[in-house]
């Protein structure tokens, strides 16, 4: 029971390869091709071949079946294939699934991937206007007739309560946006490469859903990202220093909802991320002060603040100051606001680069990185560490 005791997964597996397509607003090719390109790139980076792969993991939301990606990428027989639900909440959980398979011997080399034309194809930001009468559809259905139809609006409902609870204004979200864009400005892969912003820019940007402004919202993106996981032992024989999966966890709160968690609790925190945080700290034996870099899921800025508070980096209501003072290097790739919205998978890649020492915004001596997945939904997180 990992909710109550330290789990046995920590330190068994490592990330050995990362690969991505370019991040764009219009890829000009199929989602399947993006997935296959990313998988090939990640295997090349790992120094492995398609023949080495026997496991694949993706998101339930991904349109590219494991078998089809395998078929097009030259991957043969699979002994493990799995998918994780709840949108971006799956990101770190795909790595956890891979680590579980590797640690138990169910698979030796597992590729996790996510690829979509989320900007030129089906945009999440364009909202939802109908759902099937499944349990999941019905859950969202309580909000639809009243015009609460977009991811930004679902986050804004909690964000407004957070501001009310702590007596803040919408400017409290500014430092997250400014930090992301600062790092994006020096990342050539980022959509906002060379385009930093100021707090004044943030405050002057137009409303999307009050209290969220344009610059509180992530960059809808076309692209693919893949991550290769194998055992720590095998990792030591591969080209890059292993990024050891020190701890991996999923989390859902009591009476959890998917983006519409309006009905319980005080709305000023992220209970599901607290579930993740407790497990990561317990299994890793680390404390917040020992984390060198935080890659915190940032589809919308307010939930970055709440995550910092749930993980105990600062007290509730104090995260704005924590970010403004740059007390923790945060989203050094530029985040999903600045680099790309790859459903959190590009953040996992950045956490790996920090451990390898190859980030364009390298934090010297980074030995422990914290990565999180989608917020406001059942979610997941990782602590990656250097080997030995």
């Amino acid at each position: 029971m990992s909710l109550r005791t330290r789990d046995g997964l920590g330190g068994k597996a490592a990330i050995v390869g990362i690969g991505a397509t370019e991040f764009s607003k219009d890829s000009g090719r199929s989602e399947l091709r993006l997935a296959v390109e990313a998988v090939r790139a990640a295997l090349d980076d790992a120094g492995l071949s398609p023949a080495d792969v026997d496991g694949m993991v993706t998101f339930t939301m991904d349109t590219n079946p494991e078998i089809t990606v395998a078929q097009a990428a030259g991957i043969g027989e699979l002994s493990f294939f799995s998918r994780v639900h709840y949108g971006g909440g799956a990101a770190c959980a795909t790595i956890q699934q891979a680590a579980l398979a590797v640690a138990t011997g169910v698979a030796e080399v597992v590729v996790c991937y996510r690829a979509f034309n989320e900007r030129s194809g089906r945009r999440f930001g364009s909202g939802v206007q109908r759902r099937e009468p499944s349990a999941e559809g019905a859950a969202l259905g309580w909000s639809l007739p009243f015009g609460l139809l977009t991811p930004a609006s679902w986050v804004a409902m909690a964000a407004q309560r957070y501001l009310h609870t702590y007596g803040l204004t919408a400017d409290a979200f500014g430092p997250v946006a400014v930090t992301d864009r600062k790092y994006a400005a020096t990342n050539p892969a980022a959509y906002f490469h060379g385009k930093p912003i100021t707090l004044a820019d943030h405050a002057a940007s137009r409303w999307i859903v009050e209290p969220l402004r344009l610059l509180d919202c992530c960059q809808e993106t076309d692209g693919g990202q893949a991550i290769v996981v194998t055992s720590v032992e095998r990792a030591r024989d591969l080209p890059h220093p292993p990024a050891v999966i020190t701890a991996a966890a999923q989390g859902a709160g009591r009476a959890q909802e998917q983006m519409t968690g309006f009905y319980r609790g005080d709305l000023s925190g992220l209970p599901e991320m607290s579930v993740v945080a407790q497990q990561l700290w317990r299994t890793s034996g680390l404390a917040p002060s020992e984390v060198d870099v935080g890659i915190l899921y940032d589809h919308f800025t307010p939930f970055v603040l709440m995550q910092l508070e749930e993980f105990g980096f600062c007290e509730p209501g104090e995260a704005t100051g924590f970010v403004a003072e740059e007390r923790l290097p945060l989203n050094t790739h530029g985040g999903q606001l600045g680099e790309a919205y790859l459903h959190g998978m590009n953040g996992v890649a950045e956490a790996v680069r920090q451990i390898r020492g190859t980030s364009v915004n390298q934090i010297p001596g980074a030995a422990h990185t914290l990565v999180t997945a989608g917020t406001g939904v059942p979610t997941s997180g990782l602590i990656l560490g250097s080997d030995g």
Partner: protein
Amino acid sequence: MSSDSTVRGAASDAGRDMAYNAVRDIPYDDLKAFEGRAAAEAGIGKDLVNVPMIRHWCEAMGDTHPAYAGADPIAPPTMMQAWTMGGLSGHEGRSDAYDELFGLLDGAGYTSVVATDCEQEYVRALRPGDEISFDAVIESVSERKTTKLGTGHFVTTRMDIRAGGELAGTHRFRILKYAPARRKPKGKRPRPVINRDNAGFWEGVAAHRLLIQRCGGCGELRFPWLPGCNACGSPEWDTIEASGEGTVYSYVVMHHPPFPAFDPPYAVGLIELAEGVRIVSNVIGVPYDKVRVGLPVRLEFQRVDEELELPLFRALGGGPPFTSGGEPFGSGGEPSVGGGEPCAGGGALVEGGPGGALRVGEELPALEIPITRILIVAGAIASRDYQDVHHDAELAKAKGSPDIFMNILTTNGLIGRYITDRFGPTAVLRTVAIRLGAPNYPGDTMVLSGTVEAVDNGPDGVTAMVKVVGTNGIGKHVTGTVAVTLPPGGTA
């Protein structure tokens, strides 16, 4: 000057669901040539200022200001333009230039007209028996502009209005002569997602009962509807009917992207019911920008289309609570309406006399005006405006409007009423300057709110500049500024 391509570009910015009727480009110099020419010369009001027309106006506007009734009434200042209107038999005294300009615009395809701005200054009160004369000049004609209504040219005129040869007021008026955008019919709201687990809730809504599940095992109330209890796991349940009382627990204001059934900006609230459960809904009876955490609300069922009724929540008190801590501006210690509590819709701010305590930043209690079909028609006729778009739904639709809509003179009159209602029987309107936005269609509700922006103590008394906003279900209907004076020495 706009080329066709720039107009198309602007059109796509204005709204992706629009296309524009064909129009011909008019060289801007041809339009510019009308600037400075007379729009009306030596026009004479068809009627002397008279008590019956004043009374009809006041009835249409719901204006009970004592100065407009009794033995020696004055005409409501905002009625000024009505005395110059041609009425059903048409205008006399309009200049050739004005007719030529309209002919040119009509011929190029800009066949619709809508008033957008009205700025009036009242120099002296009009009284029964006054003979009205007027002259007007075409002040400006704009380049081609694209608005939500369509594409066209703004024409601004300025009129001097005299009573018995003496200047009584000035009136600047801006209209848009335009080719209406072809609009897709407005979409319906997204349907509720109904299944076997939650059908009972929607059956309750159909019967105008908001039902909350109650666990048969532990008695816990729950929302949303589910076939079991999260507190104890029991599958047994029954329902209780919500009292309908609640408060806003959180809210958002939707701006982007637009959806067919909704006109942003609009507010969506998370309502905490008195029973302790929460539900997402809309807060009505208050402008979208006045919804606040903690606002008390009460349940109401509203039909939003032929097939759908929804539980919505009306803000209590007709307006937001006062925020400025003390009493609203009142006279010399006399208790006034409000006093830090949510204010009832009808209260005057100044009960007895001039407001020595007018404060910049003070918010006036809101006034909620149901936009009925009869208000729109009565207002149009009382202002002698027989444009078909203000009384004939079929012809209004033929011109690209979803229904008839309120004319600018009625909006002007309602704002005059709002200000004098709030400032009391001695209040004198000095200027009213308004700009129209989202039209007032039948079935909507407009909420007028006002904020004191400046206060000036002069020899005539205390003059306040009041910023007024009128919000309806689709956005801001009107924004404007009113100068109102409270004379020294009290009663009128």
